[in-house]
C-alpha cells in the first residue's frame, strides 16, 4: 500500500473538477473540467488495485508465480477512459455546433427553451 495519498488526490481532483463545472464561464472550459472530474475515477480505480513492489500483471517475461497488481481494475480504468473520451467528444461536438448557431460559448448567454 502507498497510504492514503492516492485517495486524497482523487477526491481532490474530483472536487476541483466539479468546482470548475459549477463556476465555468466557457463551455470548452466546462467540458474539460468535466473530464478532470472523470479522471479522478482513474486514480481511484488504480489505487484500489495497487500493491507496493508488485509487478505489472503481464506474465510474458516473468515467472507465473510472481505477485502482480490487480489487472481487473486496470481493465476497468481502460474501459472508463473510453467512456470518458466518448462523452468528451460528444460534448465538444455539441459545443462546436452551439458556437456555429449562437456565436457564443458563455453558458450565461445561452437561453434554452424557457416558457
Amino acid at each position: 500500500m502507498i497510504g492514503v495519498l492516492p485517495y486524497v488526490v482523487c477526491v481532490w481532483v474530483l472536487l476541483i473538477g466539479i468546482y470548475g463545472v459549477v463556476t465555468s464561464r466557457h463551455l470548452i472550459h466546462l467540458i474539460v473540467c468535466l473530464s478532470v472530474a472523470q479522471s479522478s475515477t482513474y486514480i481511484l480505480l488504480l489505487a484500489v488495485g495497487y500493491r507496493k513492489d508488485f509487478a505489472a500483471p503481464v506474465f510474458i517475461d516473468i515467472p507465473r508465480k510472481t505477485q502482480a497488481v490487480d489487472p481487473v481494475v486496470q481493465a476497468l480504468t481502460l474501459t472508463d477512459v473510453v467512456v470518458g473520451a466518448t462523452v468528451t467528444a460528444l460534448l465538444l461536438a455539441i459545443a462546436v455546433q452551439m458556437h456555429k448557431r449562437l456565436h457564443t460559448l458563455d453558458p450565461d448567454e445561452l437561453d434554452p427553451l424557457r416558457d
Partner: protein
Amino acid sequence: MEELAPLTVAIPFGVAALLVASVPWRRTPSDVLAVSAASATLVLCLLLVLDANESDGPLTSYLGGVEPRADDVVLGIAMAIDPLGAALATLAAVLIVVAALFTWRYFEEPGPVFPALMLVFLGGLVGFSLSGDLFNMFVFFEVMSVSAYALTAYRIDRPGPLQGGLSFAVVNTIGAIMILFGIALLYGRTGALNLAQVGDALAGEPVDGLVVVSFALLVGGFLVKAAAVPFHFWLADAYAVAPTPAAIVFTGVMSDLGIYAIARIYWTVFEGPLAPHAEEVRAVLITFAIVTALLGAVMCLVQEHLKRLLAFATISQIGLALIGVALLTPAGVAGAALLVPADGLLRAGLFVCLGILIHRCGSVHELSLHGRGHEVPRIVMFLFVAGALGLAALPPLGAFTGKAVVEEAAADVGYGGVIAVFFVATLLTSAALLRAAGRIFAGWGDTEEIEDEVEESEVPGARGYTPVVMIASAAILIVAGLAFSAIPGILDQVNEAAARFTDRPVYAATVLENPVPEGREVESVHVGPRAVAVGFVTTLGAIAVAAALLRFGKLPFLLTLDSGNVAERALVRLRRLHSGQIGDYVAWAILGFALLGGGMAVAT
C-alpha cells in the same frame, strides 16, 4: 433460453453498426432493418420474462461460458435474468418498436443514424436490466446514456436541443462518475464485481463508513438518471427539446431505469448490512421520493409548453414509483413494478399524441394550440383524454393497481400518510393534462397570443393529414398502458416476482451456482375497496380541478386565500430555480449527494 440472452444485446448493437456502416442506404431498408431488430429483441425479452417466471432463481448466463470455479472464484461476467429485469427490458423494446414505427412518417429525412442511435440505446438498456455484474451495469448504463445525449441533441441545427442535450450530458456524467466511485469502493472492499458475490461479502458484516458512502454514491448516481429532486433539473430541458420519438422512449423507460437500478443494488448488494437500519434508510429515501412527487406535480401544473408539462409529470410519477422502492419491502417493489410499465406506457402514448399535434399544427404550446384540436383526427382527443384518466388511476385502469399496492405496502410499514402524497401528485398532474386537453380539443378556457417558437422546424413539410401509423402508435401505447394492470393474474405474478427479486440468499446462491436455500414465503397482496374509492375521488378531483383551471385561469385556492400572492411568488421562485444554467444544475446535484450522504450517515 438463457443461452440466447446475450443476443438481446448483440442484435441491437450489431444492427446499429450495420446501419451506420451503410449510410448511403435508402430510407426504407434501413427503417425495416431497425424495426425488425427491435422486434426480434422484443420477442427474445418476452421469452426471457416467461422463462424467468417459471424458474425459482434468476436465469444465469456467464458470458463466454466462464462459469464460477468450484472454489467460489468468479472470473466470468454474469447475466442474471429475473422476471422484473426482463420485463423492464421488454418495456424498452416495446417503446423502441413503437418509436421506430412513429419515426417512419415523422421525420422527412432521418437517415440511418437516428434508428441506429435508438438501437444502441435499446442494447444498453437491455444489457443493464439483465446484468448481474456491477461494472457491466456501469458500461451499459453509459452506452445508454451517451446514445440518449446524442438523441436529445439530434437536431443540431437548432439551439434548443443543443442546450438541452448539453445539460443532460453534463449532469448525467457527474452522476455516472459518482456511480463509478461507488463501484470502485465496493470493489476495493470485496474484490468482486459480481452483484451476488459483493452482496455475500458484505452480508456478514456490520455497516461501516465505506458501505454507507458507496451506497450514497450509487443511489445518488441512479437518482440523477431517475431525476429525483434535487437531481431533476436536466430532465425538463432535455425532454422538452428531444425529438418526439426519442422523448417517447425517455419518458417511458429511461427514468424508470434509475428506480430499477436502486432496487436492484439494494436487494442484491446492500440488503445484508443495511437491513438492520432499514427503518432509517427508508425514511431518507422516502423523503427524496415524496419531495420529487410533489414538486414535479406542482411544476407540471404551471407549465404551458406541453412537452415540459409531460416532463414534469414524468418527474412526479417517478417520485411515486420511487416511494414504492424506498419502502424496502417486497410489496413496495411489487407496487413499483406495476406502476412503472402502466405509467410509462401512458406517458409515452401521450408523447405520441403531442407528436401528432406537432406534426399537424407545428406547435406544442398549450395556448397557441387553443381550439386547434380539430385539425387532427378526433381519435387523438379520445386517446389523450384516456391517457390522462389512466394516469389519474381511474379504477381499474392504468396506474390504479400499482398505486393501490404501494399505498397498502406503505401502510404496512407505518407510512400510511403517503396516500395523501399519491392523491395530491396524481390529482395535479392529471388536472394539468385534462386542462391541456380542454384547451386544445374543446377550445375551452382563455387564450392569448403568444410568440410561437421552435417546434415547427421539427418536421419540415408536414403532410396535410395524419398518417395512420402515428395514430396506431398512440393507440397501442395508451391501450397497453390502460390495460396493463387489468391483465388477469398480473397482480399475483408481479407480487411473486417481487418476492423473488428481494430474496438475496436465493439470488446469490443461484448466480454463484451454490446449493439454493429455501425461498421466502410470498405474502399475498390485494386491492381493497378503499383503494377503489380513493381512485374514483382522485379522478373526479382531477376533472374538477381541470375545469376550475379552465374557468378561472388559476387554482381557485390561490385566489381565495389572502396569501395568494405569497403562493404565486413562491411559484415564480420555484420556476426561476429551473434556470437552464448547467452550473446551477450541477451544484444542486452535488447538494443532493451531500443530503443523501448526510442522511445515510445519520441513519446508520
